Each structure stands twice: as C-alpha cells, then as structure tokens.
C-alpha cells in the first residue's frame, strides 16, 4: 500500500465488478482524503451506484482493493460491519422505517451497540435524549417527532434519512442523489446541510443535478463506463473534451 492510501479515508484501486458479463465497474481507482467532500457525477450506467455498493459491502468486487481509513480492508466485510466501522449510506429513494415514529427512526440509528441481546435487555444511553433533540433540530423535524415516518413528505423523509446518518456518527458518508425530487428551496437547504456535515467528516455525493453540484463547490469526479473519466473542479471537468463528449454535451 502506498503513502496516498495510508492518508486517505477511502481508497479504491483497480476495482472491477461485472454482472453477467456487463462491466459495471472497470478498474475503478479513487481516493478520498480525510475531511474531504467529493461529488461524483456521470451518465446513467456509469457505475455510481455500484461504486457505493462495493464500498458499503452490498456487492463484492471481482478484483481490486478497497481500504477505509488507510488500512481496513472492506472487501472482506459485510454491510453491518462496514456500517459499524463508520460508513453511512443514504439511498437515492428515501428509505426510512415507515411504521416507526421519527424519533424511533433516529433512535435506532444512534451510534451504539447493535446486538440483539443488547437491544432486548439493554438500557438507553443517558446521553441519547439530548442527542436526539439536537438531531431533530438539525433536520427541522422537532415538531414531527411522534409522527410515523411513513406520513412525512418526500423532502422530510430525505431529511430524516440524513438525520439518521448523522446519528450513526459516520466518518464517511455516501449520499446518493440527495436533491432528487426536492423543491429549489429544499435543494439549497440540503446543499447547505451537506457542507455543514462535511466540516466534521468525509462526504461522497453522487448527483445528477448540476446546479446542486455547483452549489456544493467541491472537487468533482466524473465516472463513465465504470471508471474515472476526469477529476478536478467543476469548471475543469466541464471543459474536458472527453467529458463533454460522453456526458455534458449530449
């Protein structure tokens, strides 16, 4: 492992995944530094979601190395262990526990023990209520705390899910299209929230919405056909002829 890998929060090298002959990821290499926020863009089928799947343990790569925090090999771990390490994931479609209350959703996400025995007989951590109040404030769902998550609006569910990720206290947050289906005001507020989050942890945002990516104002990686096409500022990649050909120009 080289010097770059040791100092990174996420290090992918030569990662390939194929489904029935289709190469979803093709020798993908990517390094995200500690404390960095990175936007990942690319056309449909570029491998953005598969990239998240291999990092979070949902899909095992055929070849390649994936290291978290410089030295933890993620290719040997399942979803639960990876989540416990401190990698949070937000799905494209907001996924919350619909028949639990907003408060219970956050409570289940709170960092802590995850075993069945603990869940059955354990007591609530003394710090939990204060932390939950704080989170409810951040995601602006304080007055909805006792509502069933299933009755929230689409935007509120997105925020609740972000709140659940914060409750996990991850070191690295993977966010899949956070602005999808949001109003302009909600999109702006979400960008602000993500920038706030990125102050204390690393964030990877996969996004289609260029206005949103511009609002984030971070380094951009363009994926195409399972590997990195271009990397740099949004203006830099927008000017890259290969990017224009494969994506932006269409």
């Amino acid at each position, binding site marked *: 492992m080289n010097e770059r890998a040791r100092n990174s929060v996420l290090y992918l090298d030569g990662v390939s995944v194929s489904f029935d002959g289709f190469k979803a990821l093709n020798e993908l290499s990517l390094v995200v530094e500690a404390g960095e926020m990175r936007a990942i863009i690319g056309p449909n089928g570029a491998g953005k979601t598969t990239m998240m799947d291999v990092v*979070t343990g*949902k899909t095992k790569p055929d070849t390649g190395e994936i290291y978290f925090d410089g030295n933890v090999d993620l290719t040997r771990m*399942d*979803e*639960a*262990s990876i*989540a*416990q390490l401190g990698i*949070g*994931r937000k*799905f494209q479609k907001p*996924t*919350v*526990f*619909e*028949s*639990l209350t907003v408060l*219970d959703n956050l*409570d*289940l*996400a709170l960092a802590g023990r*995850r*075993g*069945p025995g603990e*869940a*059955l*007989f*354990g*007591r*609530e951590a003394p710090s939990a209520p204060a932390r939950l109040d704080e989170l409810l404030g951040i995601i602006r769902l304080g007055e909805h705390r006792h509502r069933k998550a*299933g009755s929230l609006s689409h935007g509120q569910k997105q925020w609740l899910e972000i709140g*659940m990720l914060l409750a*996990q206290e991850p070191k690295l947050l993977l966010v899949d299209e956070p602005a999808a289906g949001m109003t302009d005001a909600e999109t702006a507020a979400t960008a602000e929230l993500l920038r706030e989050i990125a102050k204390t942890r690393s964030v990877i945002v996969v996004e289609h919405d260029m206005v949103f990516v511009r609002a984030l104002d971070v380094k951009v990686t363009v994926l195409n056909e399972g590997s990195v096409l271009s990397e740099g500022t949004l203006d830099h990649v927008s000017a890259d002829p290969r990017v224009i050909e494969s994506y932006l120009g269409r």
Partner: protein
Amino acid sequence: MGAFFRNGLDRGALAVVAILVAAAILVPVLNLYVPPGSAFHLPGHLVPLFGKYLSYALLAMSVGLIWGYAGILSLGHGAFFALGGYAMGMYLMRQIGSRGVYGNAELPDFMVFLNWKELPVAWWGFQSFPYALLMVVLAPGVLAFVFGWFAFRSRVTGVYFSIITQAMTFALLLAFFRNDFGFGGNNGLTDFKDILGFNIQAPETRAALFAATALILALAFVTARAVVASRFGKVLVAIRDAESRTRFLGYRVENYKLAVWTLSAAMAGVAGALYVPQVGIINPGEFAPENSIEVVIWAAVGGRGLLVGPIVGAIVVNFAKTWFTTGALAPYWLFALGGLFIAVTLFLPKGIVGTIVDGWSALAQRRSSARAEQGVAPSEPDGPPGGELKPSAAEQGA
C-alpha cells in the same frame, strides 16, 4: 429483567392478561363447582375444547410475532407445534407403563407390536416430566435455530422462505409417517392414561390443564409484548419495513431474525405440548402443510399487526369450525374458511382486531379535534388499546 417485562405491560396488554386469568379461574369453577342442573354449569366436554382453542391461540400468536413484526411468513409452524406435541406425547406414553394392551412396562404398545426389544435412544428420559418439558422447547427450538441459521444467513426472504418452511413440515410429515422412524407411525401416540399421576380423563385434570393453558398463554403473551416493545422489537419492525436500510445502519439482520424465529418456534412447541393432553392424541397429520396454512389464516383473520389479533383469530375461526363441522354444513367448511380468508384479505386487511383498534383511534382523534374546535386545548389523542404497532401496507409476504 423486571424492566424488560414492565415495558410490555401497557393498559391493553393488562386487559388481555386479566381476561386470560379470569378464564383460568372461571372455566374450572363453572365446570366443577356449579351443579350440572344450573344454567351457569359448563359441560365437561367443553373444557378440553376451550383448552384446544387456547393452545391454537398460542400457536397463532407465535406466527403473529414473526409475521406481523418481522415480516417473516412461516408456512411451516405446524411442524414446531407438532414437535412440542410429540415431546409431550412421549412423556404420556411412558406414563402408561404396564397398563398398555401388551402389558409391557418399558415399551409403548406400538414398539411391542413392531417386535422391538428395547427403547430407542430418542425415547430415553421421557419418563421424567421436567425432561419432557425441556424437550418441548428444545426440539422445535433447535430445529428452528438450525433451519433459520442457514436460511437467514443465505438471505432467503419473502415467498422463498415461506416455501422452504412448507417443505420442512412436509419432510417431517413423511418421516413421522414411517413406522421405523420410531414415533408410532401413522397412528401416532395415543391412549394416554395419566399426567403427573392424575387421570388424564378426570374432570379435575382437564380443568387444571385448561387453567394451565390459559395462564401459559398469558405468560407467553406478556413475553412477546415485552419483546416487541423493546428496542429489539423496533429493530424487527425496521427489518420488516426496510431490511437493507437496517443492515446499513449496522444491524446484523440475520441474528435478529434468527432470535425471534427461534423464540416463536419454541412458543409453538409449548402450544403443541398443551394441545396433546387435552385432545388425547398426536399423529403425523399435525405436520400436514395445510395445518400450517390454516394457522396463518387465523392470524390474518384476527389481525397480524397486533399480538392479540392472532389470539382472537384462532379462537373465532376454531369456534366457527366446531360449529360448522358438527352440523349439516360440515362438507362446506373448507369453502367457508377459504372464503373467510379472501374476504378478510380484501375487506379487513388489518384483521378483526386491527380494524377495531383503528376505528377506536379514529374515534379518539375525532373527539379530540372536536374538543379543539370548541376552544378546549387539544390533548394527545388516546392511544388504542394495546398501543401496538400497526402493520404497514407494504409488508412482505402479504
């Protein structure tokens, strides 16, 4: 531990426990101490019949626990019920002793008939009641643990899981039908004489068995309530609603499923053990796949989203079955049962109890908003009795 149980005992749960305790007292009293001439006398043949209903209720609740809360639809819970029943039946067979037809003090009649010379290993220890009770829980519990360990680790879910549970109970049906399997072949185990030294046919014994069934059902209900009210129960609901989200939060879903699945199987085994002495027979027919499906219908009719739903469903459907199959309508029972299942699925997706509870909370909501309109400060709407979680529409295996 105390806090664990207190968690599960809200107003609604206490009401259920009170009803069961009252039944455990009233049924024996009305049967034994009210003279037969009185209008309040309960005829002797109804006592084991009611006992049978309550053991079915426990079985249905064990299905409701995994189906309603964790979204695991078992179409093979009859197998765990039957295993518990066989464990109890083996104890009862050993109690017959030399009073059997062949008068062999050591071997049950069917073994003498098959010309066996000594007791098979599987039967050792069953002369002891505590050992038999242990097996009532262990036999279904261990089977469920092994089955679940493989199934949940391989992430078998939804309808595929349901199908392999059917295969499991069918395989056991075939095994238990064989004479050389050692559990009485297709005749099963019957002709029991006494339990703990008491004549199993005596009205007092039957009354005691009924009371035990009602009290054990109450205890199992409180345990299940405590489980679903705990954080563990919330994780189960989370798994039901969004399994992969739960994994990405760091919960090892298969361990949670395995724990509740094994608990549920053990409860089904206890139900079987209560059933056998009251019905007087256990045979391989109890493993029939259609039996397990019927249990699912009871749970659906009563309402699987609440623990009390399957209890009510099992009692209501079996009462209807008794009524139907003892009259001229007997040949049409299966049509009635199928029709009931379709009707409930279409018109009462939350079952009888779920619909009543929903109506109750809607009414409470309306009252509180009416108060609010009259200028009175709105209060929190009254919770429904039981205050349990309601199933989401998008449940798997529905």
